[in-house]
């Protein structure tokens, strides 16, 4: 079965400290992977995407994610959290099969940033 698991429903960090949001996927096919951020009452904004060109992907606002095939993981990191990073983060897998594309969302991780 294909799935996406975000290992933490909530993560709390202090401003200026590193952020780690964890995502594991399960797929029989080679997936495309994305991280989206959603601020309250807003739509989803694409942070970064894994395109198979490089395992370490740089995104907007200082975020990075590393694709590790052996661990089936695509964790999101940022060296130093900012108050404006407080939001909901979704790991998304796009699977290509014989029936076309299928998008699978993780359950989301709420990031809290303390001053």
């Amino acid at each position, binding site marked *: 079965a294909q799935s996406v698991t975000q290992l933490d429903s909530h993560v709390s960090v202090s401003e200026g400290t590193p952020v780690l949001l964890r995502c594991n996927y399960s797929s029989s096919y080679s997936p*495309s992977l*994305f991280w*989206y951020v959603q601020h309250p*009452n*807003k*739509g*989803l*904004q*694409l942070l970064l*995407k894994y*395109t198979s060109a490089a395992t370490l992907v740089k995104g907007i606002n200082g975020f990075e994610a590393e694709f590790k095939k052996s661990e089936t993981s695509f964790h999101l990191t940022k060296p130093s959290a900012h108050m404006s990073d407080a939001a909901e983060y*979704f790991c998304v897998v*796009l699977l290509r099969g014989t029936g*076309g*594309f299928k*998008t699978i*969302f*993780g*359950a*989301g991780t*709420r990031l809290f940033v303390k001053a």
Partner: protein
Amino acid sequence: DAMVIQNPRYQVTQFGKPVTLSCSQTLNHNVMYWYQQKSSQAPKLLFHYYDKDFNNEADTPDNFQSRRPNTSFCFLDIRSPGLGDAAMYLCATSSSSSPYNEQFFGPGTRLTVL
């Protein structure tokens, strides 16, 4: 700037009164999606249009319909809203010619059912 626009941003309707939500895009993408997102949950795909072809998710209630009169516009019709349909509705687009098919989201419409 190319974008996905949703109108209205906030919609209030009465129980059982039909309502239509609107989405337009200037990205010229051939795929358009409608998602329902309830509080503290991930978006749930209702259906999508691949060009003019309508693709309904198996568990989308019949109460939800969609129209796509042209490439730029897509509408979500809720024929008889119930209290359980109160949610954020997100429109998204993508291009099938893109190798990674990333989706671009609108700001959403928050639907309240009284």
